[in-house]
């Protein structure tokens, strides 16, 4: 039986942990991230006869390694390559929350965006056009209320489809300024030459242009370890659709 690995990413206070608890119930345990003083929560659930192992990443505003939390979340997505990353967004403050979604989409296409707190948003008179967001982001979008456990089945259906490859998302590509885009183009061949197709070259280029020293350190550390035995999504190629 297949076991899929799912990561939960999201801003603090988005109800990410509520979703995690709703998904895993009592089948969860907590510990620390290796070498980091950040709590790590992991659990399991089944859906449609498949087992899902779910990791609750630390709640962060971004993935630009401003803090240990952000490094942990980034490293998990980029090095451990979960089968699906669920990005949990707060429906009542989508604009800020979408930033994180876009950052994750630069790292992997195996994403389901999950808009939580839909009930709160409705109370505040916020109307969200889910189809439009899904269309723009290029990934499936599910609307849920983790507290009242509504919409979770539909979310899990999408997660399973992405995990099994029945849906292959083609995420939005943020267009940067001319100057940045040119630099990315110059760097990408070097990155492919050095790192192969293990990591999304465009994202690595952006991080390097941003002077992300902690990513460099993480890459070096990772190079020292034995390569993980995992199904690798081939980021270097365009996905078929």
């Amino acid at each position, binding site marked *: 039986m297949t076991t899929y690995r799912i990561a939960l990413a999201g801003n*603090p*206070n988005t109800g990410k942990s509520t979703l995690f*608890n709703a998904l895993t119930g009592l089948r969860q345990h907590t510990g620390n991230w290796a070498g980091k*003083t*950040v*709590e790590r929560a992991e659990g399991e659930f089944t859906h449609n006869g498949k087992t899902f192992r779910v990791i609750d990443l630390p709640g962060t505003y971004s993935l630009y390694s401003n*803090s*240990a939390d952000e490094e942990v979340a980034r490293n998990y997505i980029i090095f451990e390559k979960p089968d699906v990353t669920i990005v949990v967004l707060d429906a*009542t403050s*989508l*604009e*800020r929350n*979408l*930033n994180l979604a*876009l950052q994750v989409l630069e790292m992997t296409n195996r994403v389901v965006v999950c808009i939580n707190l839909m009930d*709160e948003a409705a*109370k*505040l*008179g*916020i*109307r*969200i*056009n*889910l189809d*439009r*967001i899904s269309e*723009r*982001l290029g990934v499936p979008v599910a609307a849920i209320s983790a*507290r009242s456990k509504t919409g979770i089945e539909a979310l899990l259906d999408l997660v399973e489809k992405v995990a099994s490859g029945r849906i292959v998302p083609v995420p939005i590509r*943020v*267009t*940067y*300024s001319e*100057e*940045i885009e040119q*630099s990315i183009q*110059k*760097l990408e061949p*070097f*990155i492919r*030459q*050095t*790192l*192969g*197709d*293990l990591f999304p070259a465009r994202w690595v*280029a*952006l991080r*390097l*242009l*941003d*002077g992300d*020293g902690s990513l*460099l350190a993480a890459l*070096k550390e990772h*190079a020292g370890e034995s*390569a*993980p035995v*995992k199904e*690798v999504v081939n980021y270097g190629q365009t996905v078929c659709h």
Partner: protein
Amino acid sequence: MAKPYATNSSNSLDSLFAAAAKLAEGNSIRDGIVSDIYKTTHEICRESVRYEDRKKLETTYRLDKIVTSPIWGFPIMLAILGVVFWITIAGANVPSEMLASMFTWIEGYLTAGFQALHVPEWIHGVLVLGFYRGTSWVISVMLPPMAIFFPVFALLENFGFLPRVAFNMDRLFKKSGGHGKQALTMSMGFGCNAAAILSTRIIESPRERILAILTNNFVPCNGRWPILILLASLFMAVGVSSQYQTMVTAFIVMGMVLIGVAVTLAVSWVLSKTALRGIPTHYTLELPPYRKPQFIKTILISSRDKSWNVLKRAVLVAAPAGVITWILGNVDVGGTSVLNHMAAFFDPFARAIGLDGFILMAFILGLPANEIVLPILLMGYMSTGAMVDADGLDNIKQIFLDHGWTWLTALNTMLFSLLHYPCGTTLINIYKETKSVKWTVLSGVIPLAIAIAVTFAVAQTVRAFGWV
């Protein structure tokens, strides 16, 4: 198998990094990346999010206008704190009594059973009077208040109240040189200092984090609540009529917490002017919307995760401590027990700070966990011959009175408990987090020095004025 890196040498990674740095040149790229992402999200939101009524969005902020208002901000905080203590104390009293008498009732049968089987007296002593009594003590004194306090606190936490406390108190922490999030790590300390030490990770500046670590101990943890609550209700609330006793007890406990906060701020201030000099680093605090907590779920989860774990730890430490205390109390050297020798040794110094040898010894033996200080103290007293069955709160008070306790003894025991060094687990965590012997030692020595100074001053003042 995944492909290894095409090139494994870190040199090639370095040169890649250098190439990127050359392209980036300065800060403009960093800003560019963020603002381009922002532009994209802004566009997506403009297309897909509609606000029916902007006025409605403000509902979330109406409560904050009151909870963080200049007039009501602090009174509301104090009132909530007081109510939490009141609920804890009022609610814990009866179950504590019931548990205590149930354990005493079982103990009678255990003793009878041991006698029927002709088990040697010392085995009965170690197992029943030491192990069983120590453990049942901890359970009956600690479980009820913790089973009430943690869920109530978790409800407040889930409601979103704690960030408001941080918001209201931030200026005090800034003035004392600490980080605004220190208020949050202090709140964690109410549960468990050892866990709160880990929670100081949310403070990124090393200087301010050490400040938060060194002062976290001044927030009474679950191991110390029972001492504070018990002594406050036995000795401090005696003069008032019975219907107000719980309230007075709650006030006294709250007073203790406020003393702890004041000491925290004072120590932070002194340290940030001396050993940890520096200016407060930047700080952003999100005040998330208030959310109605899910009552039953919150209560169940916090009972499971907090109360149960605390109890488990207490029993794990209390059981061996009970055995050791019984043995120390029953092994005679030169006619008196080892325990008495030790208590006599500490007595002169302890008297000077308003305690007695047994109390000080209980705090020393209680280093592994604050939970066991009270059981050790009671077992110490009981092993000295003034044998009373501690099957109820009145009898506990009798034990204390038989050993010459006054309200000053109770007050100073509470103060010492509030201010003295953190428990062993906390110290280990401090070492793990700071990787520094110096800070670990200081985080024990500074509180100890303050505890001794404060209790000494109180004892001498009270005696000089002839109040006891």
